[in-house]
């Protein structure tokens, strides 16, 4: 089992949700996050006072999947979240040691 974490552009969330559903993903956790990468920040001006916004708003999604789905999900996210411009985001994949469904107590593959 793997935990796939992806940082994407916020307005791409719906596309990504649809794409991963189509390859069989049953659930996604979404968090609003801020950070910086190669995109850097931007400048805002209020009545002449300039503020550099160094941390850009992004959306983080987390998906737990069976090993067989990992490549499909990565491909689905990559295609659906891509704009081709700096700041499209990153995907991180971690090993997942245990999964428990709280309602039933089911474990691992049957709990995903």
């Amino acid at each position, binding site marked *: 089992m793997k935990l796939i974490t992806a940082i994407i552009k916020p307005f791409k969330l719906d596309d990504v949700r649809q794409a991963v559903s189509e390859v069989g993903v049953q659930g996604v956790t979404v968090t609003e996050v801020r950070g910086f990468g190669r995109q850097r920040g931007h400048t805002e*001006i*209020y*009545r002449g006072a300039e*503020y550099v*916004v160094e941390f850009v708003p992004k959306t983080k999604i987390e998906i737990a999947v069976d090993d067989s789905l990992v490549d499909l999900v990565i491909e689905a996210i990559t295609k659906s979240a891509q704009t081709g411009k700096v700041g499209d985001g990153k995907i991180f994949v971690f090993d997942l040691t245990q999964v428990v469904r709280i309602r039933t107590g089911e474990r691992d593959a049957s709990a995903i």
Partner: protein
Amino acid sequence: MSKPSGLVFLCVLALSIPAAWSDEAPSASTAATTEAPAASTPPAAAAAPTEPTLMGADKISAGDTAWMLTSTALVLMMSIPGLALFYGGMVRKKNVLATLMQTFAITCLVTLLWWLIGYSWAFTPGGPFLGSASRAFFNGMTFIHDPTNQMSVSHLALTIPESVYAMFQLTFAAITPALIAGAFADRMKFSALLVFMAAWSLLVYSPIAHMVWEPTGWLNKAGVLDYAGGTVVHINAGVAGLASCLVLGKRLGYGREAMAPHNLTLTLIGASLLWVGWFGFNAGSAGAADGRAGMAMLVTQLATAAAALAWASAEWVSRGKPSVLGIASGAVAGLVAITPASGFVGPTPAVIIGVVAGVLCFIAATSLKHALGYDDSLDAFGVHGIGGIIGALLTGVFASKEISGLDASVLTQLKGVAVTLVYGFAASFIILKVIDMTIGLRVTEEQEREGLDISLHGESIE
């Protein structure tokens, strides 16, 4: 009261602002002004009353009264929620409730002070600087239903009940100190704020209102024109704002930390409520539902639109983008600048006043402030002080005798501006220093870092 009747009549007719008369259309108010006054008026003032007087209901104009009741509600809406939201959106999220609280509390506080003595000091005849105490606790302000059906009427608005006139002026007295709060946002103690605003309302607002608006006031006698409060309200609040941000010092982290507005949607809603409410402020200052009120409303709309576009355009040219905060700020600058001129100028001068105010207030709020290094957090001085000065001076340039029936002069206007700047700054500075030395003005560094919502009011928003 012992002045020759001719002079008194002239004073009332020529100088009382906002007086309930019009020289365009013979309306109910004109008729009432020129009719014989009520029996209780002393013989010396046979032409027109020079102080609040008991009058019969037949002298009251239903149309004028209806419009003034409406205007009063509109001007109250400018403070709460208009100004509260305008300022509340511009501060950081940790201070939004404290900022809303300031405007709301000031409105309540000034209401009671107005009843206590503020109205009396401002709008009863007295010396050149201050009225009398005859209307303390609204003493003598009355309506008697049976059998005479009489009510007290102010000598400054002869066709409406004095209760309505005093209420209308109350809303002006309330918004003026609330405007000052923009200069020291994020850092004044709530207790110090209440003491400052109470002292300021009685020692600065009432005297200036008396000097400019009451016929015995010396600036009024000198011919200073201020239709709806460019000097009394805006220059006065602006310069008090300047004094307070100088005495209090800058916000912690000013110039180093981000202090971007937390919600410009609130600010735009607030600016829009101010705009709508301002029709009560300016067209209501006619004291009547007449042709002059109509002109005041028309020029208010024109100047505001012109100033909003001018500020946003100046921003677009010099900084690359026209901003929401910019167009909203420009609208307020235009509203401020047309205020003293609104009952005196025609449509084209209104557009010119708007453009000048939009561009100059933009420069004041963006460049002048940073060049001089004071932290007028929400630009109370940059918008209200500078806008008020522009409006007062341009009133001298553009006032039309056809509309106003009065002669205007830039030099006389300058005198009004200078007196208000000097007195307003000095008095505010002294009041603030006294508070600073006694109970203290500023919150602790820790409270300021944490935010005033939690540290002063024990509340926060998510």
